[in-house]
């Protein structure tokens, strides 16, 4: 029995590595909770990032930490608007850091909260209920995941593999399309990046573009009027709490491209959504196209930046924050001198 299992496991690992995959971490509630714990730290010299996938791909955590000399905590969750995480941090008296809120209109301005907030709700609940045993298990898990490719459940687990089966669904059943496993990897700090395999393969990029552009926009699930105002009031209340503890908050709208950007502009006109959000919440924002330094990136699959561009985007974002938004990073000069 042990022989069969050992041969199978070795063959499985060999197979995935043979296809070019390298070890990556499962981007789940456990990894999120590990980062969230770092935000529960009464220091003002840290910045947390909340929102959806764009800030996870586009913001390079290592670059941010190197340039600012402050801790960066990636708390964005793929496919979520980030509002629950914002509220959670606002209600946590120990969190005294700064906050960058990623805005991707289809997620942020959707009223389909049951679906959009699911993973955020589960992650926050897990964080508050996580036991000592679960923390210990996570530590062992990270060691194993850093060595073995097949252990990444999100891409190579049985559920992920079953979801790739191309079996037609009944009319009206439209599950989220599975992304190719070559799309991205995630590190221990929850930095997600497009893989070299993906960047080198135009066919994969086309496939992913088709996935993004096939996701329908349901007009009945878009916020408007009173709903938008009510949601903004809730966001403002959270932001005010963070500000009252000395934290700075800013909205960031990272780049997108092609038909993805075209659809976002069509369904979420800037004046009706972005401008109102800033106005209602009395909070500054950085919209990528307003700043030449971050306006002209090419998103390989129209939604996220390549890792090299992520580094540039982060560097330029820090500069914009310092030069145009009045953010200061007391440790930055000291650290820059070291580097």
């Amino acid at each position, binding site marked *: *029995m042990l022989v*069969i*299992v050992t041969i*199978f*496991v070795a063959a*499985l690992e060999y197979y995935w590595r043979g296809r070019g995959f390298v070890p990556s971490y*499962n981007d789940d509630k*456990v990894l999120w909770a590990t980062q969230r714990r770092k935000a529960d730290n009464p220091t003002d010299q840290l910045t947390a990032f909340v929102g959806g996938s764009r800030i996870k791909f586009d913001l390079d955590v290592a670059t941010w930490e190197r340039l600012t000399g402050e801790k960066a905590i990636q708390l964005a969750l793929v496919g979520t608007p980030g509002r629950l995480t914002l509220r959670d941090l606002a209600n946590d008296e120990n969190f005294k850091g700064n906050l960058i809120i990623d805005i991707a209109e289809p997620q942020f301005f959707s009223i389909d909260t*049951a679906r959009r907030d699911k993973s955020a709700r589960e992650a926050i609940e897990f964080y508050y209920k996580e*036991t*000592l*045993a*679960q923390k*210990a*298990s*996570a530590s*062992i*898990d990270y060691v*194993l995941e850093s060595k073995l490719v*097949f*252990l*990444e*459940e999100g891409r*190579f*687990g*049985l*559920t992920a*593999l*079953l*979801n790739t*089966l191309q*079996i*037609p*669904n*009944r*009319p*009206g*059943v439209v*599950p989220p399309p599975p992304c190719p496993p070559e799309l991205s990897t995630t590190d221990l700090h929850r930095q997600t990046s497009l893989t070299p395999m993906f960047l080198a393969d135009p066919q994969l990029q086309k496939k992913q573009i088709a996935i993004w552009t096939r996701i329908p926009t349901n007009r009945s699930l878009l916020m408007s009027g009173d709903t938008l105002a009510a949601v903004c009031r809730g966001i403002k209340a959270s932001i005010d709490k963070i500000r009252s503890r000395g934290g700075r908050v800013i909205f960031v709208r990272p780049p997108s491209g092609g038909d993805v950007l075209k659809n976002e502009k069509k369904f979420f006109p800037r004046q009706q959504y972005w401008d109102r959000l800033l106005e209602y919440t009395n909070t500054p924002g950085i919209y990528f196209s307003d700043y030449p330094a971050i306006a002209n990136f090419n998103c390989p699959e129209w939604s996220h930046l390549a890792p090299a561009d992520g580094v540039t985007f982060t560097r330029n974002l820090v500069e914009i924050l310092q030069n145009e938004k009045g953010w200061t990073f007391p440790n930055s000069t000291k650290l820059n001198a070291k580097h």
Partner: protein
Amino acid sequence: MVFNSYTFIAFFIVMLILHHLPFTWKTKKINLLLASYVFYAAWNPPFILLLWLSTVVDFFVGRALYTQENKYKKRMLLVISLIGNLGMLCFFKYGGFLLENFVTMVNALGIDYHPAKPNIILPAGISFYTFTTLCYTIDMYHRKSQPVKSLLDFSLFVTFFPHLVAGPIVRPHQLVPQFETPRKTTRQQLMQGLFLLSLGLFMKVVLADTLLAATANTVFGFQRPLAGLDAWMGVLAFSGQIFFDFAGYSTCAIAVAMCLGFVLPENFRYPYAALGFSDFWRRWHITLSTWLRDYLYIPLGGNRKGEARTYVNLMITMLLGGLWHGASWTFVVWGALHGTYLCIERLIKDRLVPKQTPNFLLLPFTFFLVNVTWVFFRATDFSTAWRMLTSIFGQTEKGTAVLTTVDLIITSTVVTLMVLIHWLMRNTSALQAAQKAKWWVVAGVWALMIIGIVICQKSGDSFIYFQF
């Protein structure tokens, strides 16, 4: 600490090594007890104090109950034990529920009373270890067995980590004698234990968590009317999930104890092969149903006080059995429905067809009603339960289809195989079947189970019965 976690694997390896080193029996028992406290404290360390309190109080009260000759003092001691154990259970498990119902009641009477919501955390396993200690003191009251001689053995009886958090609910005579005399694990016991541990983890990790949980969660979490097919698949998925989750836990518990040389009672005997409801309760959560029979139904009078009282006793037992599962009226309805089924079955047997032997056609009928009743067990509120029931019985127009074809195929395949295996195995056990099979078949099945666990990678998800 849950069985399906890396922490437990490390903990268990250490325990196996320690338990097989040439220590004295007393040292091994102390190791087991300390390990059990570590196992429990890994959830929420402060709650270990409750466990100690329960252990110490019941050890001394149990001894006093056994030796006390004065009838009134004896009753008083029993009342102290019942208040202590049930009071703790009521506070932690039912405190919020009782307050909520009290508030609803006084508000209905026109009194404006709105207290703050209590923030009570339910200590893991409290329903299980409370029943374990309760049966000891009740047995002492009736002098059914001798009091446990040492506090170490009694502490281990209450705290022994394989059964501590979610059963099987053990009785003193089942476990205490095993601590009193030195035991050595045989090679066969160890192998059988490891085989059962793999089976239990396979049931939990692969079948319950990976293949069925998402479907059940999608359907029960959907806030609008569902298409009939989707509602049924959700119910069937939950039916499989709850079985594989809980039977998986029990199998792991029995397996872990077996690897250490101890025998825990059987908790599941292929319940979906039941022919009727009394048969179902002889196969589902056996240690709870026998506990309720021996410590509630029989003391209430059982079937000795006439026909009407028998039905009343059955209903009381099942209502409280339902409430044991959770502080919610949906659980009470679940228990009431099972009580009603048992009463009707008894009525039919007593009055209408007393000599008819069970017919295999009862299987689909029992399975159907058990599934319908699971709706109340799984639904978080009555509106969800009603929405599900109207959907499964086709009483909704334009219900929404939410499940993918892959979900439908997986659920129908797993549930069909589950019922088939339950039917084929209804008079045997996994170990008996493994002993009869050829070695290479056992090795192949065992390897497949471990491979399944490895590729599913869902470590650390909690067991459903922990919330009870």
